[in-house]
């Protein structure tokens, strides 16, 4: 299924950072929403800022408009404040995009575990994200760093424990 762009994406001024404070607020909210939806649709978990500027997400070739680097940084800062983005480097060139927060992933994973009567079993991280059993689940294909944070969230909740195994990490669910 192809990505459905919101109508703002074809509105040329949407790609210019608005001078009016109220208008800019609405604009940034719409951009945050667009960025998260796009990443979610394409299952993108990390973004390279330079690449992002040229990607269709911020660059609409059809109407010849794109977000400036300054505007992209402002959108990313908004996402960071909302807890949907984390910088990987000091220079702010690469970031993690959490279109679903760790707590939300944790809940999905736990639901699957309990639905299949597998509470008290132990899984390797690989089994969870790439195993045959989880094919078709939304968390299938989840990148390890995100999976780990999600399990950490469950651990904080007392519903899982992350354990070290011979060749990596695993998790036990309660």
């Amino acid at each position, binding site marked *: 299924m192809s990505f459905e762009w919101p109508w*703002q994406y074809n509105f*040329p001024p*949407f790609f*210019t950072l608005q001078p009016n404070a109220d*208008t800019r607020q*609405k604009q940034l909210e*719409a951009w945050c929403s667009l960025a998260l939806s796009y990443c979610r649709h394409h299952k993108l978990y990390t973004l390279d800022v330079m690449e992002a500027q040229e990607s269709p997400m911020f660059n609409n070739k059809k109407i010849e*408009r794109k977000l400036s680097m300054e505007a992209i940084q402002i959108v990313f800062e908004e996402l960071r404040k909302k807890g949907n983005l984390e910088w990987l480097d000091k220079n702010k060139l690469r970031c993690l995009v959490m279109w679903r927060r760790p707590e939300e992933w944790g809940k999905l994973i736990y639901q699957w575990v309990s639905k299949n009567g597998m509470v008290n079993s132990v899984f390797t991280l690989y089994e969870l994200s790439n195993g045959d059993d989880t094919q078709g689940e939304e968390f299938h294909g989840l990148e390890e760093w995100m999976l780990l944070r999600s399990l950490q969230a469950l651990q904080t909740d007392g519903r899982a424990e992350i354990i070290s195994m011979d060749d990596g990490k695993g998790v036990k669910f309660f």
Partner: protein
Amino acid sequence: YKERGTVLAEDQIVQMSKQLETFKSNLEEFASKHKQEIRKNSQFRVQFQEMCATIGVDPLASGKGFWSEMLGVGDFYYELGVQIIEVCLALKHRNGGLITLDELHQRVLKGRGKYAQDVSQDDLVRAIKKLKAMGSGFGMIPVGGSYLVQSVPAELNMDHTVVLQLAEDHLLKEGLAWLDSQAAGEPQYWLPALFSELSSRDVTPEEANQMTP
């Protein structure tokens, strides 16, 4: 010589007055005969209005009085005015109080239903002028051959030939316009109210709230 000149002038004035009186009473007779026509036929209304204008008569001048009673013309425009207000209020959250005359026309017609009287854009313009005169915050901005109807009293101070290009301080400040700095040449200003994709689609209230303050 001077006296003769005055006498002649007086004569002429008396003549003219008589002619005007005759004309006026013919008009009244015409109007009463064609009352039905006036209510039903928008084309007829335009011509009637133009006729009245040439002799300096405003059929809408008063809610009571000859024109309104004889013809019900006033009622027609006052009712229309109310309809216009309703449409504008209903859409304000979407377009910030600015709507094209075309869209207003479509929606008024839709609201009146199949069997109601025909309403033309000329009718709308007159009704809006009435509303404006009553101080209800309505205005019309000429744009490319038609009009933008403004139902929110924001300060729009502009030369009517450059609406879409410039009025930046006011329009931007009011949040009615968006700046596009990537247009070829000079920066341009866009009004979400005129963006056809926005007005032709059915935008949900949540989506609409995202665009207008």
